[in-house]
């Protein structure tokens, strides 16, 4: 009896040792943001907010397919399984909703909830209207007139003018739980304590300005995107050297945008540094009213003056040479004019335009979202331009001041011949059209320097009414080629989106997008 008891005890003890409780797997991400992006719906902190908080907690009616590295990310069904323009009304889009989707608080996705989510960002009389998120989302919602329930499973969105690009704007329009908002009495501060989306992660806790912790949503509607780790910790860490040190010290597993000088050290310590083209453009928007950039010869001269290979070398290879608004991997790239490095041609063009030496002033920032390494990069551009006959003055300011210059436009700031603000080129309205359309002249839009071209206006008007994606893409490609021919910018480079991963991190697929999917990541202790 005693022997049996001892044997049983040994077996029990052995089984306890053999089957330890499975430790929680945690993915810790160091973001470049200086604060935790708003987690109550439409995030702030630029696209980084959407990348880490938006797509983790929430879904839109249309999502982005971030599952592949080899092609540019495109739209994919999200909370809507199908969408299309009403054949009888080219200002009415119809969305068919996914069935049986529940929010993290068990609230059910239905047409009423979707309509409320649309209205709360366009109509200040809708309960839960949030003025800050309304403002933040304005460029996406400005052409949306209203939303309407068709039946429990269908919703219509009406636009003010025919808008074939609406799906891009819907793709960043997150659906939040109306039940959670009602429970919070439509008080955003209270909702922030228990937010609920339909995304692959659930809110767990937050320490303001320090960390946001999310946990796996095992019941996520898309089984392919159920996270392969238990917890996601998002930490704002704006200083690049600190991010690299935190990764090397094992405090985080995944860092955004390591600076070029830290990359060799990270690699030699076994970290995986990954880069991939994505829709980013580091350029100068030009002033088309004041001389000298109102002359296309001067714009072309500036583009021929740049030795972009030297720029890429200076950046340690984390960028690719930029010759057009879109990077070459973009589907709308087409066959733009390639302004090869040709200093002799640049000087000749300046002389032909009667601007030699050609004095110009650029407004630049010391840092900022997507600005890469603005000071050394601008210094190099200045040196290269001056080598062909430009006389360049760089007016250095902080990011907010430069945004103000960009926002108010060339009319308010005629002393600048160009501004250096990098942009996301993820979708045609934001990536291309806002730089070339008269409707977008500052301060009403993103066409800072008041570029105007009737040929482009006609093509864009046609594209807005073209609901066949393939035909519309052909039209957009044409616009891109014209914009390049006209040298509407001083094209410099496209970022390669570097990030560094600890050896513990496996399975990450970097998408050609500003957004990324963290759900496939597995954490392997002592992983190589």
């Amino acid at each position: 009896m005693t022997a049996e008891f001892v044997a049983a005890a040994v077996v029990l003890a052995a089984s306890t040792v053999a089957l330890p409780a499975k430790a929680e797997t945690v993915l810790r991400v160091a973001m470049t943001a200086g604060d935790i992006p708003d987690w109550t719906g439409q995030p702030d902190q630029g696209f980084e907010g959407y990348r880490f908080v938006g797509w983790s907690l929430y879904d839109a009616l249309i999502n982005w397919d971030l599952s592949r590295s080899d092609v540019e990310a495109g739209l994919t069904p999200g909370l809507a399984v199908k969408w299309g323009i009403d054949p009888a009304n080219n200002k009415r889009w119809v969305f068919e909703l996914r069935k049986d989707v529940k929010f993290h608080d068990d609230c059910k996705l239905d047409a009423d909830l979707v309509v409320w989510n649309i209205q709360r960002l366009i109509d200040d009389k809708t309960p839960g209207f949030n003025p800050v998120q309304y403002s933040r989302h304005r460029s996406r919602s400005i052409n949306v007139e209203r939303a309407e329930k068709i039946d429990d499973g269908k919703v219509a969105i009406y636009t003010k003018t025919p808008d074939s690009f609406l799906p891009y704007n819907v793709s960043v329009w997150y659906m939040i739980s109306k039940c959670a908002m009602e429970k919070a009495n439509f008080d955003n501060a209270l909702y922030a304590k228990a937010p609920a989306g339909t995304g692959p992660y659930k809110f767990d806790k937050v320490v303001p300005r320090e960390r946001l912790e999310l946990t796996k949503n095992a019941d996520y509607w898309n089984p392919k995107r159920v996270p392969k780790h238990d917890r996601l910790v998002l930490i704002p860490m704006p200083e690049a050297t600190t991010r690299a040190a935190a990764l090397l010290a094992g405090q985080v597993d995944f860092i955004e945008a390591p600076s070029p000088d830290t990359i060799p050290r990270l690699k030699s310590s076994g970290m995986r540094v990954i880069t991939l083209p994505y829709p980013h453009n580091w350029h100068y928007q030009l002033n088309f009213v004041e001389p000298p950039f109102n002359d296309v010869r001067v714009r072309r001269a500036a583009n021929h003056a740049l030795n972009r290979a030297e720029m890429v070398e200076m950046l340690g290879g984390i960028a690719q040479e930029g010759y057009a608004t879109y990077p070459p991997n973009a589907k709308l790239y087409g066959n733009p004019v390639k302004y090869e490095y040709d200093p002799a041609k640049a000087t000749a063009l300046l002389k032909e335009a009667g601007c030699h030496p050609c004095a110009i002033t650029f407004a630049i920032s010391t840092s900022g979202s997507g600005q890469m390494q603005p000071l050394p990069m601008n210094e190099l551009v200045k040196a290269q331009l001056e080598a062909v006959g430009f006389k360049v003055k760089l007016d250095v300011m902080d990011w907010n001041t430069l945004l103000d210059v960009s926002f108010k436009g060339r009319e308010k700031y005629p002393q600048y011949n160009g501004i250096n603000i990098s942009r996301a080129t993820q979708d045609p309205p934001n990536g291309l059209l806002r730089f070339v359309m008269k409707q977008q002249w500052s301060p009403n839009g993103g066409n800072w320097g008041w570029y105007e071209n009737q040929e482009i206006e006609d093509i864009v008007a046609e594209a807005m009414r073209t609901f066949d994606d393939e035909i519309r893409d052909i039209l957009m490609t044409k616009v891109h080629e014209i914009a390049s021919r006209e040298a509407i910018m001083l094209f410099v480079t496209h970022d390669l989106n570097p990030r560094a991963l600890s050896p513990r991190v496996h399975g990450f697929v970097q998408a050609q997008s500003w957004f990324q999917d963290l759900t496939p990541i597995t954490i392997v202790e002592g992983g190589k």
Partner: protein
Amino acid sequence: MTSSCWHAEFKKLMWAYAGRRIIYAVPIAIGVTVICFGLVFLAPGDPMVNLLPPDASPADAAYLRKLYGFDQPVPVQYAKWLLRAVTGDLGTSLQTGRPVISEVGRALSNTIVISLGAVLLAFSLAFVLGTLAGYYAGRPADRALTAVSVVGVSVPNYWLGMVLIIVFSVELGVLPATGMGSAGSDTFSLFNWEQAKYAILPVITLSMVPLGIIMRNTRAAIAEVLANDFVQTLRAKGLPETMVIRHAVRNAFPQVLAVMGLQFGYLVGGSILIETIFTWPGTGFLLSKAILTRDIPVLQGAILVLAMCFVATNLAVDLLQTAIDPRIRRA
């Protein structure tokens, strides 16, 4: 005069002095509110551009400006802000929507953790080393110790912070590089090693400048006191050197205390560079974010609270000096 009479007289004088200093602090506080309110409006940029997409219309900007009251004249905004501020309401952050008082309170408590540590480290080391340097003034020991203070003042502390991270976090792996630990500042305690270790590198980095400054001041004060005639008298009376130093320290302390108070005030103001390097969510980190995004309510609230802390610290130092040194009281 009996002992109890002396104590009563002392208390009376102290209260009178404290009352006078507190009354002096009121116009300083009002001046601070005017300056901190006005300064943020002088900077270029627009708080609305951080809230709006790049292609938002002027109408959207005007809508937000009105919503936050920025469309009103600055004196009207100031009056409204001041009325709210005296009730403890510093407004709401434009960026986060959270009350400024809670944002600043949290950041201030985090900064106090490291500034208190830095203060204790710097003050104790600087006082001992400065006293030794003053005692051996002009001799090799003085030169060696003075070199330490020069290093403390001269080495850029953001550089030192990075070096410490590289050595102790990356290479040796004995101390964490950034942050306040896995639970953040919510449950941070200096009495729990797992959390306290996050404060060590920021504390060392932060202590270097005050260490150098206080050490130099202590050295000068001790050397000056030791050159006085009464020290000769003490020595002539055969007092041991340890007692002589004790007298010198007592005489030099009020002067050094004033410098310490100033340094503590500076530290509580937070260091933008150090807190950014260590991702320490204190007042410096908060201010840098608020400056970059033109979060005016946070800037105004943080500057006001920090200025008040500075005024309060100086007041406390003045009172302490008065308690220690009767000559000041009589003056």
